[in-house]
């Protein structure tokens, strides 16, 4: 069930709980994010994945337990320094005024990249837009983009924040809450590739995902949540099994093993073929 504590874990959540309006959304969650590792959080709707992510980023204050980043309590770190240590891409970001794509992406760099020379900052925004595949949309008003394009712009902004923060904080974390929900397959893979590339540079990455096949493909460390609690975590191949699928996701499907690395995969076709099960 629980992984041995990583020696140099960057973000440590210990016994996190969150109760609001008499409902417990997260209970006793203990989770470490290690530098250079991609942790993927899965679970059914309402399992508390987003809430756990919000607790770990400091957006919501935990009612129990505590979170530390680089050994320092989250609540003791001022917002500006935290912004250098971690970037967050939330699920929905809606805008009120007609900011251009370029301006939205700049937001990640404007604040914490103030120490950089202006030309370097502009170039960085350009690189991030290009990396997220939205460079040719730079002049467009953000509100006129499709949902998937908006999501890629938000990813570009998050990339910019990580890059800009790197000159100030060496050890960083990246949090992505369902970053591929509106993306087509090509961009889903591209974004997850990029998240792993960022992890490879020593960033601790946490991603909330719904697609189990992508989760096991991209995770170094898989975390399964159900009804507010972490019920399993570890290497993807060892964590996911048929019993867990039945118990957590309430589907009666059996996992198969892909040939080369032996990762589990799932075919929903079984469900159609055998609807009575």
């Amino acid at each position, binding site marked *: 069930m629980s992984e041995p504590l990583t020696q140099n874990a960057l973000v440590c959540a210990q016994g996190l709980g969150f109760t609001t309006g008499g409902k417990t959304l997260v209970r006793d969650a203990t989770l470490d994010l290690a530098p250079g590792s991609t942790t993927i959080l899965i679970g059914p709707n309402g399992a508390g994945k987003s809430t756990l992510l919000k607790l770990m980023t400091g957006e919501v204050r935990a009612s129990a337990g505590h979170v530390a980043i680089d050994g320092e309590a989250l609540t003791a770190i001022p*917002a500006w320094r935290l*912004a250098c240590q971690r970037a967050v891409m939330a699920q929905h970001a809606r805008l009120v005024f007609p900011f251009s794509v*370029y301006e939205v992406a700049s*937001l990640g760099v404007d604040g914490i990249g103030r120490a950089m020379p202006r030309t370097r900052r502009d170039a960085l925004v350009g690189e991030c837009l290009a990396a997220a595949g939205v460079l040719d949309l730079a002049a467009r008003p953000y509100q006129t983009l499709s949902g998937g394009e908006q999501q890629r712009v938000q990813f570009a902004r998050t990339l910019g924040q990580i*890059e800009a923060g790197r000159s100030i904080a060496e050890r960083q974390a990246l949090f992505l809450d369902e970053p591929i929900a509106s993306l087509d397959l090509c961009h889903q893979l591209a974004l997850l590739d990029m998240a792993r590339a960022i992890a490879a540079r020593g960033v601790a990455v946490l991603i909330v995902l719904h697609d189990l096949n992508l989760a096991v493909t991209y995770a170094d460390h898989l975390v399964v949540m159900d009804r507010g609690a972490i019920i399993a975590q570890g290497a993807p191949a060892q964590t996911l099994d048929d019993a867990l699928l039945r118990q957590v996701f309430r589907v009666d499907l059996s996992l198969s093993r892909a040939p080369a690395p032996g990762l589990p995969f799932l075919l929903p076709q079984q469900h159609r073929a055998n609807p009575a099960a």
Partner: protein
Amino acid sequence: MTVAASSVSRLPAGLAALVARRRQVAGLAVGVLALGCLVLTLVAIGQGAITIAPARVAEILWARLAGNAALFEGRDVLVVMNIRLPRVLLGLLVGAALAVSGALMQGLFRNPLADPGLVGVSAGAGLAAAATIVLGDRFVTGTQMKLPFAILPLGAFCGGLISTLALYLIATRRGRTSVATMLLAGVALGALAGAMTGLLAFISDDRQLRDLTFWSMGSLGGASWTKLAAIAPIVIPLLLAMPFLARGLNGLMLGEAEAYHLGIPVQRIKALAILLVALAVGASVAAAGLIGFVGIVVPHLIRLAVGPDHRLLLPLSALGGAMLLVGADIVARLIVAPAELPLGIVTAAIGAPFFLWLLLRRAGPLDV
């Protein structure tokens, strides 16, 4: 993974052009508005019962700045220095304060229809002013006429501050201010203050009613160096805080959580913006009465011209608001000379049609 290679520092051509164009538009807008302010200031100082050519006005002001004693005498100098200049400076200051407050409130409430009235300043100030005008006489007999007008600005200022403070406390729970609650509570408090102001109007006599009506339409008529010295220290902090607030408001456009993730001290920005707006609008209302429309029309015009980036929007709104108010004051004094129209009538009469024309001119629907 181009991002990984941080040595890359050349912009793609399209983006470089975009960045350059943004800077050109910004530079042009600052230039045009600053020049407009200067020209209107000279015209406004020169115009009135004694007409003074703008060149002569410039000469007098320059001599004054340079400390040239030879030019300190003469009728023109007295008119410019003692009557016209304080009036125009008050107009510039009040116009800038109202427009910047409007832009700040729209950004803070993430609502294009927000205006400074939303934080309850106008409602509270209006009620306090009505109470001073209508009830002042009843409690203080003997000094009729004099006293209400001496304490009117002070009463309006305190009324504005108290209602803002009440709204802020209503909307703040456990150290977090909900702008949505504040918006709704502001509507309710405004209605309540409006009802009480109406009640005061109902029990007022004819002279009080006339005073109240004129005050509620605004005027720069009572400008003096004393008044200016009283409101400048209250309004100027708002203008000085613009660069700090602008960055925060840009982040807030994505939402409060995202702004926090970007490292913006959200609660501090909210509290500071509300406090500075309450002070600046309270002082403006106290000095010049209720002048509507500047806070909503100016920021929208600027947004249509240069986009919604607050780092540009706030300073340009300051210039635009100053220009609109001084321009409106010229019209107010010219159109029915030697009498003058209430300023609020003119700002609405100039601003509203221009705004409508801009809306109609646009091809597509407006993305506010």
